[in-house]
């Protein structure tokens, strides 16, 4: 009987002790926000373009983390980002529906601009400068090419141009040998299973 009592008591004491430790730990090591969402967000290209159907990269990351969104909705990120997110989430990679276009930047035709500031309000990265009734212009170094400024413009004076390639940013293409081409083709076929 005493043995039984001792066992019950000691187990209760342990349970109480661990309970207290865990309670303290959950307070001390509490992580604000969803770490998965943050991790996914660092993988996204941060264009803030909304092509995924969410109003920016952060909301999309949160949606993917909570399982509301698929891993293949980021258009500018392309296959690479999709594979990384899928790897992080531990889910099967999905097919990319829309191919990413060449990197673009917005360009304001200044002589047609009426200075309405609507594009400035639409820009997700504050890359347009201007003031009411003054010409607006794009800070090309910061433009993510999201196209969100094109729609609100009442006089249609914003063009999306292909980002000029700089000599310093040029990089070698794959060798044009048959085997290199074969690798690209095979990758296309196996993409959904590759991680």
């Amino acid at each position, binding site marked *: 009987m005493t043995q039984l009592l001792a066992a019950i008591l000691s187990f209760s004491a342990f349970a109480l002790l661990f309970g207290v430790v865990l309670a303290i730990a959950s307070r001390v090591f509490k992580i604000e926000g969803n770490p998965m969402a943050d991790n996914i967000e660092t993988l996204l290209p941060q*264009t803030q373009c909304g092509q995924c159907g969410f109003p920016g990269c952060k909301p999309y990351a949160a949606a993917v983390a909570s399982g509301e969104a698929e891993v293949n909705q980021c258009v500018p990120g392309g296959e690479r980002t999709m594979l990384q997110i899928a790897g992080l989430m531990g889910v099967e990679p999905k097919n990319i529906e829309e191919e990413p276009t060449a990197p673009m930047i917005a360009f304001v035709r200044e002589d047609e601009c009426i200075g309405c500031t609507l594009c400035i309000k639409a820009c997700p990265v504050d890359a347009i400068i201007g003031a009411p009734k003054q010409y607006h212009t794009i800070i090309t170094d910061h433009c993510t090419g999201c196209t969100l400024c094109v729609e609100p413009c009442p006089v249609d004076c914003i063009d999306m141009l292909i980002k000029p390639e700089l000599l310093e940013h040029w990089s070698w293409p794959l060798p044009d040998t048959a085997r290199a081409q074969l690798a690209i083709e095979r990758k296309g076929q196996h993409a959904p299973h590759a991680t």
Partner: protein
Amino acid sequence: MLHTLLRSIAERPGIFSGGIEPEMLKITAGSPIATPPIAPIYIVPIKQHIGEVCTPIVSVGEHVFRGQKIARSQGYVSVPVHAPTSGTVVKIEDHAIPHPSGMGLPSIFIEPDGEDSHDESLEAICDYRGRDPGELRERVRVCGIAGLGGAVFPTFIKLLKDQRNPIETVIINGIECEPYLTNDHRLMLEKPEAIATGLDIIMHMVGAKKAIVAIEDNKADAAEAIRSALNSLPDMEHVEVRLLPTRYPQGSEKQLVQVLTGKEIPARKLPMHIGVLCQNVGTTFAISDAIIRGRPLTERIITVSGDALPRPGNVRARLGTPIRFILAQHGLEHFEDTHLLHGGPMMGERLKNPDIPVVKSTNGLLAMHSETMMKAHKVEQPCIRCGHCGVACPVSLVPNLLADQCRNDQFEKAESYNLFDCIECGACSYVCPSNIPLVHYFRYGKGQLAQITRAKAFADISKERSEARGTRIEREAAARAAKRKTVRTKHMPKPVDEKSSEEKSDISADPKGDGL
């Protein structure tokens, strides 16, 4: 213990792991350096070094003298550009440069006046031993000198007398291990005194006590010339001329330092971190020219060779000379079925058109029959895991594995297998029995990794800006709300006690009564 043991095995002077022995084909070794006539036009790109681009400081129609600065350097890693001859600036516009992309850079077009008169603003410094190293270093910078071995890194940066990394040994690189090229060989034969003086200047500038002139044993005559030139200078007993066995890529800085000192330069470190300074013989000559004669860098020695060239030779070419003009001097005027290479056959790059100018990095121009090139570029076969590439690699990488990773876009993995330690010497591609263009895959991988890094940096900035915008909108909304509140409280009737407010409302509600 094991570490020390391994180190003692690894630190063996006189050897570097890997390497190959290609056919040297130094057919121009016996041709003296020729000076071509003045070309009808000079095309001077505003950036000819590794680093920041320069800004043109001359305008169209302006007359310039030879050696006059025509583009100002911006930023630290940069050197100015000088006019190659006297004449008139006719236009400044984009022109193709020797670059694998075939893309262009703004270039200054100079039409020579035939006088070739020099800009004499820089005085000659003959008593360099009595001058401050900082002053000499500034002279090397304003003279636009960049490493003429091919990497074109601004030379003045390396010539720093740094307390933290004192230079013990200066190495003059006269290895020239690329097949075909003989420009350094000829320079050592014809200007050994100037090279010896240049070495003396460098030793004075960095305060080094020891120096080694490294030459491969297929250039014994050059070693002899340098040795006798050194003997005629005072205080040169600590300078050693060393003949090394011919092996490619011994001329690569890291490999040469390993061969001469037995120390391996750690990854992402420079020779100065192990107390060594390495200069090419061409650069040494240019330094001596800049100090002793006050002449900025406006010309360099290049080897013009190749099996499609009727009269191969070595020339003293002005920077900016169109390659077409130089090749015409050597009997090549039609470029059908000809591949033009910029640099040697191992590391050189193919030129897309012959109107590209000679720049500071041009050490050789090769005109090859397309047939010869096609023979070298056979169909790529599957890797048979023979391991020859790993044996040949001078930096002990595993080329076949890296190529697989690059081909399959596993760039991060390739990086973790030290892709960036690859010096792109081409030894692996040379030995590959399956004709895999290994170096091309590495260049592709490195480029993609650079793009990924850039995209990541841009994404970080965009994220920051997007977050800043969020807080700005919040702040503005809060400010607006606060303003609304203050305006409301200001214009609202003052909350007074009920009685007086009732009275007031009575008055306002009954103005007529008041009037009556």
